[in-house]
């Protein structure tokens, strides 16, 4: 155990409305949301840094984080088997709290098949200049629910963003086509004929007409229910859109994860309704912020900043923060089976009626102590709903995969890399201007859904071999001049980490566990599910009551943002 654990003053007070363990994005949002409604919140994390499975880590810390979470936690010493009595509880506890039993808490593996390769010895010396996302590739759409939430909560004040300069789709011939960020860009595209452009024009008119009338009573311009329930790909076929445009819409704007051309056996058929919603999200993202060009933005210093921003927001609202403080056991009510508190590494008992645990925590089974039967049954029942896996890769290189572009998204749709490729592979390159790596270098994130590690790794390797020149002595003779399909010199791969991450959903009963990062490109689904958790936990409370900047100004608590005086560029 870490010495620093014991240099802390005891946590005071000892009773809270909510205790949150882990500082991943969902946990941090929940802490901020609860604090904003005036709840007393204690936020703990066993690590010395913020972010848990959503953090951005220095180069040398990333492999150890992945490895430590890819095996079961070391068996801990058996904790006290007895229920603790009033005497060893804190003075402030009431008599009812002596009806609590301790149940050990440990961690379970959420990553597997971690594969680290280093082709450059000097990189480690620059370790602290890297902020590598565990959740990559990840961006925010300017109009998505994470951006809305940052604005609503006030967390937006602490993070600065930059644009993703462009999105590209790789076609079957290996060429990268640029994804248009406006209607006029489409009409300028010389590869499309006039008839195709006209069809596209009427398609956009149809979608716009539909979106205008959704939610209103009018209905003449709405797309029929029948069409909305159809696969999006069929709807696009019906609109007779050119193949290239269809592919761009499905994979690089609506971000479909699986092959939509082979509908039988497709794991996730994108319906027209959802497809149109995603098109609308993209459309409203472009131009939402007048000096953000394009639809996508990325936080300076990496995605881990978002957790920190919500934690700071929570702290400003009174949430108490204690890092480096592992939770050893939960305190469970013998009668009801509900969680009433936690025993932390310092030995202190802390109490609260609500408890949120990060996704990698678990109760080791079988239990070390014998509990009433109903409680045994209840705890045995805690299963985590695991919905497949995502294969992720983090690569470091010293030249851009697309000349003149520093930060970009490249989508390799199904079948674009090899014939059996059934999932879309998304690749996000982030340049040093976002402070995630030393200048002159680039961090490239890859991800794809997979059934198992073999399939996932095959996809990642196919993409990596296409994008990079990999310095392996056996296979390549003169890798430094290797060229890609469009004649650009391939960047050298300096370092890579590939891993398979479990996609576990959150659960609520009897304890609240939050989500692992999902396989999406943005945080939309994650924000929605986090909001649901909050509403279940505090049904009377609003999820971030509206506060406006002017209100804060009246209180004199918040000066104008530093950038107010330079709004328009």
């Amino acid at each position, binding site marked *: 155990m870490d010495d620093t654990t014991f240099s802390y003053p005891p946590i005071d007070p000892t009773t809270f409305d909510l205790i949150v363990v882990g500082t991943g994005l969902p946990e941090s949002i929940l802490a901020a949301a609860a604090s904003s409604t005036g709840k007393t919140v204690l936020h703990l994390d066993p690590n010395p840094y913020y972010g848990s499975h959503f953090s951005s880590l220095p180069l040398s810390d990333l492999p150890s984080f992945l490895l430590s979470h890819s095996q079961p936690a070391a068996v801990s010493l058996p904790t006290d088997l007895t229920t603790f009595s009033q005497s060893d509880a804190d003075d402030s506890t009431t008599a009812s709290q002596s009806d609590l039993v301790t149940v050990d808490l440990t961690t379970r593996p959420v990553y597997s098949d971690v594969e680290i390769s280093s082709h450059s010895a000097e990189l480690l010396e620059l370790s602290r200049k890297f902020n590598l996302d565990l959740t990559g590739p990840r961006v925010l759409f300017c109009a998505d629910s994470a951006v809305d939430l940052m604005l609503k909560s006030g967390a937006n004040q602490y*993070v600065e963003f930059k644009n993703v300069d462009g999105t590209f789709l790789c076609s079957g011939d290996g060429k990268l086509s640029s994804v248009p960020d406006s209607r006029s860009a489409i009409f300028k595209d010389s590869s499309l004929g006039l008839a195709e452009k006209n069809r596209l024009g009427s398609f956009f008119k149809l979608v716009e007409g539909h979106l205008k009338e959704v939610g209103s009573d009018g209905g003449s311009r709405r797309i029929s229910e029948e069409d909305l329930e159809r696969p999006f790909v069929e709807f696009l076929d019906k609109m007779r859109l050119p193949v290239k445009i269809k592919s761009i819409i499905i994979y690089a704007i609506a971000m479909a994860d699986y092959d939509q051309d082979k509908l039988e056996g497709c794991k996730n058929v994108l319906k027209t309704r959802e497809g149109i919603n995603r098109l609308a999200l993209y459309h409203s993202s472009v131009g939402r912020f007048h000096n953000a060009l394009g639809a996508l933005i990325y936080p300076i210093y990496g995605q881990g900043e978002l957790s920190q*921003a919500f934690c*700071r927001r929570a702290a*400003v609202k009174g949430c108490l923060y204690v*890092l*480096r403080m592992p939770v050893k056991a939960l305190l469970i009510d013998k009668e009801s089976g509900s969680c009433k508190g936690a025993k932390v590494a310092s030995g202190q008992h802390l109490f609260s009626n609500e408890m949120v645990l990060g996704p990698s925590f678990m109760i080791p089974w079988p239990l070390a102590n014998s509990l009433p039967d109903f409680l045994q049954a209840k705890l045995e029942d805690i299963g985590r709903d695991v919905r497949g896996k995502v294969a992720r890769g983090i690569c470091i290189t010293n030249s851009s995969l697309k000349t003149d572009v520093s930060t970009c998204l490249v989508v390799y749709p199904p079948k674009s890399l090899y014939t059996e490729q059934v999932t879309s592979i998304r690749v996000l390159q982030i340049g040093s201007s976002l402070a995630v790596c030393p200048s002159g270098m680039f961090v490239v994130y890859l991800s794809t859904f997979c059934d198992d590690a073999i399939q996932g790794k095959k996809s990642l390797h196919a993409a990596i071999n296409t994008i990079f020149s990999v310095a392996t002595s056996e296979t390549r003779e003169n890798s430094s001049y290797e060229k890609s399909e469009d004649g650009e010199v391939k960047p050298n791969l300096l370092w890579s980490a590939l891993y398979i991450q479990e996609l576990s959903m959150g659960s609520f009963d009897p304890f609240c566990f939050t989500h692992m990062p999902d396989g999406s490109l943005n945080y939309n689904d994650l924000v929605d599910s986090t909001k649901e958790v909050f509403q279940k936990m505090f049904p009377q409370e609003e999820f971030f009551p509206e506060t*406006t900047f002017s209100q804060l100004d009246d209180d004199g608590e918040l000066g104008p*943002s*530093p950038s107010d005086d330079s709004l328009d560029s």
Partner: protein
Amino acid sequence: MATTGQNTLNAKLVLLGDMGAGKSSLVLRFVKGQFHEFQESTIGAAFFSQTLAVNDATVKFEIWDTAGQERYHSLAPMYYRGAAAAIIVYDITSTDSFARAKKWVQELQKQGNPNMVMALAGNKADLADKRVVPVEEARAYAEENGLFFIETSAKTAANVNEIFYEIAKRLPRAQPAQNPAGMVLVDRQTEGSRAASCCA
């Protein structure tokens, strides 16, 4: 990071030090001219801003408060990032708080921004009869570590404006931006215009 506008220098300033050393009191005295004998632990403030005119420029301080996250040593890297200046505050009536101040100096040195202007403030100078940290000791420490040192009293306002003024004078005027600034998201509906403001 200090960024230069036309004649305005925007500078993020952070305060560090023990609970109760008087970080918030110093800021409140500087920004609002107020002092509360029993200032509560910091809740509710995100940051303050205050503009100072020095000889050749206007310095707009964006002052970040710890929001209590220092209590269990849980400040986020976000707090230090891009700070152009830091004031490390201790209480002249507490040797513990002086020892902790030295720890915060080390912490800042680890963050590694060589251009950061650091000031050491021996606060509660009005409580001279309870003094346990000698001026000479603190001054010697500050000199060794390249800090600017001054004793302050948020209660009497002694040296409070002076410390901020001195920092403003010492800020490098043409500091090359380490990372070009990005945009802060601002909502049109609450701010009059939904615009991402660019603070370049």
